[in-house]
């Protein structure tokens, strides 16, 4: 329960930060229609009054939270549509892309990692796979998106290419460690088949960390989806977030910030719940030399 309250507070704080950033950005309260010389003074005054409602970011956010309690997410000025409709309209595209990206990258990442652990002397394969993963990790997601677009690939494929090296690098070490355990050597000595060793011993013993990584990879995927959707022109939530940020659409930005925060915080909480205590302690000092 305290974890849920903490999550709710963090999500609300993320939304509040989004509201303040959008409110105090240059030109936040200026409507470009004010430059239209055909508009009368009355129309201009009405426009300014509408924009003026957003002048107090705290009050705007409080109004938003009250609306949220009633299921009303507000209205997007830049898209001229209710935000609820916009999110429901764009979410399937992003979810589809994330599902393909995550499934593909896990399949490939784990698929490339297992042979490294299985055949300990396959150092040429290990070296080649690690080098390829390292090279791909040297390129930003936006650049991979450009190159894949030039080659005619789809956005979900770009996400797979961006995520696979990350999944590979994490899972490789876990699989190598699991294959090196004494109970695996004992199972081999007793003549248990390799497929049973993989499913019953290796993946089973690495399962807590793999599940934790699965939850964390959702957050990685969301982060990568923003530049990929923007560059590949995919009508998803990532591009909507980009448009909201550039158009300073305060209500839309607040909603998206809270949605992204909710997903990533829930994924992190899930990861923490699935990770054994000693692993969490080790991760705290993961970068200590």
């Amino acid at each position, binding site marked *: 329960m305290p974890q849920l309250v903490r999550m709710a507070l963090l999500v609300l704080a993320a939304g509040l930060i989004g509201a303040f950033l959008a409110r105090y950005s240059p030109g936040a309260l200026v409507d470009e229609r004010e430059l239209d010389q055909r508009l009368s003074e009355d129309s201009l005054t009405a426009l300014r009054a509408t924009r003026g409602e957003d002048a107090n970011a705290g009050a705007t956010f409080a109004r938003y939270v009250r609306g949220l309690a009633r299921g009303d997410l507000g209205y997007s000025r830049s898209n001229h549509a209710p935000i609820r409709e916009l999110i429901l309209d764009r979410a399937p595209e992003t979810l589809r892309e994330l599902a393909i990206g995550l499934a593909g990258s896990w399949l490939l990442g784990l698929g490339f990692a297992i042979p490294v652990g299985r055949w300990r002397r396959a150092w040429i394969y290990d070296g080649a796979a690690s080098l390829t993963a390292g090279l791909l990790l040297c390129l930003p997601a936006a650049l991979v998106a450009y190159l894949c677009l030039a080659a005619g690939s789809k956005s979900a494929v770009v996400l797979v290419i961006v995520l696979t090296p990350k999944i590979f690098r994490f899972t490789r070490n876990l699989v190598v460690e699991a294959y090196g355990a004494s109970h695996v050597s004992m199972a081999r000595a007793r003549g248990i088949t390799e497929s049973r060793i993989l499913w019953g011993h290796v993946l089973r013993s690495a399962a807590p960390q793999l599940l934790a990584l699965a939850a964390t990879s959702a957050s990685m995927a969301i982060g990568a989806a923003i530049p990929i959707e923007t560059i590949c022109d995919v009508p998803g939530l990532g591009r909507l977030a980009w448009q909201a940020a550039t158009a300073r659409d305060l209500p839309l930005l607040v909603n998206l910030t809270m949605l*992204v925060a909710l997903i990533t915080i829930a994924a992190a909480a899930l990861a923490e719940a699935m990770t054994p205590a000693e692993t969490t302690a080790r991760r705290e000092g993961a970068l200590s030399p």
Partner: protein
Amino acid sequence: MKPIRTAAIVFLAAVALAAITPQFWAPARYDAQFRETPDASPSNRFPLGTDALGRDRLSRLIYGTRVSLLLAPAAATLSCLAAAALGGIAGLAGGWIDRAIVSAADLFLSLPWLFLLLMVRAGLPLNVSPAASVTITFLLLGALGWAAPARVIRAAVRELKDSDFVLQARASGCRQSRLLWRHLMPNVAPILWAQFWVAVPVYILAETTLGMLGLGVAEPLPSWGGLLRELEDGAALSHLWLLAPVLLLAAVVGSFQLILPREDYSL
């Protein structure tokens, strides 16, 4: 030291030297326009050709390296200093101060880093001078990147807090600030150093992404992100020399990865 690590350090040193002294290596200034030869293919005069405005791509690459390669360590220094201060205070003080700093760090970590960066950068003016855009971009990178290293520093300080030498210092009447800066910080310095080296390639890649999305360093000042925008029209596959910044970026980030302290990838 492994030969490959030595090679990476030598390569980075050579690139940094070229970046610090571009006037000795670049055939022209980054903003010099050769209007009679726009979009030229590689030649003896222009080894990487010219862009649509007739600017020498090799010169822009060398000057762009200066921006990307030298300012990323500056941003990493900023975020590591902030992480040392906040993480150190949180670990040492405990109680509500610790909870407040950890919650703030969690808040920063709860949003994908790029989303946070885009949100803040998009909230700033787009029509700023090139020098201001460089400062804004890297200040943002430094200011937003404190959370992850701060958590590591906090964990290390909490561990050290109960050690014998800290108890001894406390018993001798050492003030909290002196305890932090004279006793704890020297002991967490190696961890901070590791965080710095982790942050540098991350910031180089972040600047590149921002630049490619049009929110990085402003023209005519070149940066790797800005140079890579040329790939937008998909001409890279037919004009392979456009991939020169990609190769340099991959080589530099890869070299940073090679010289990083040994990473623990386990969760």
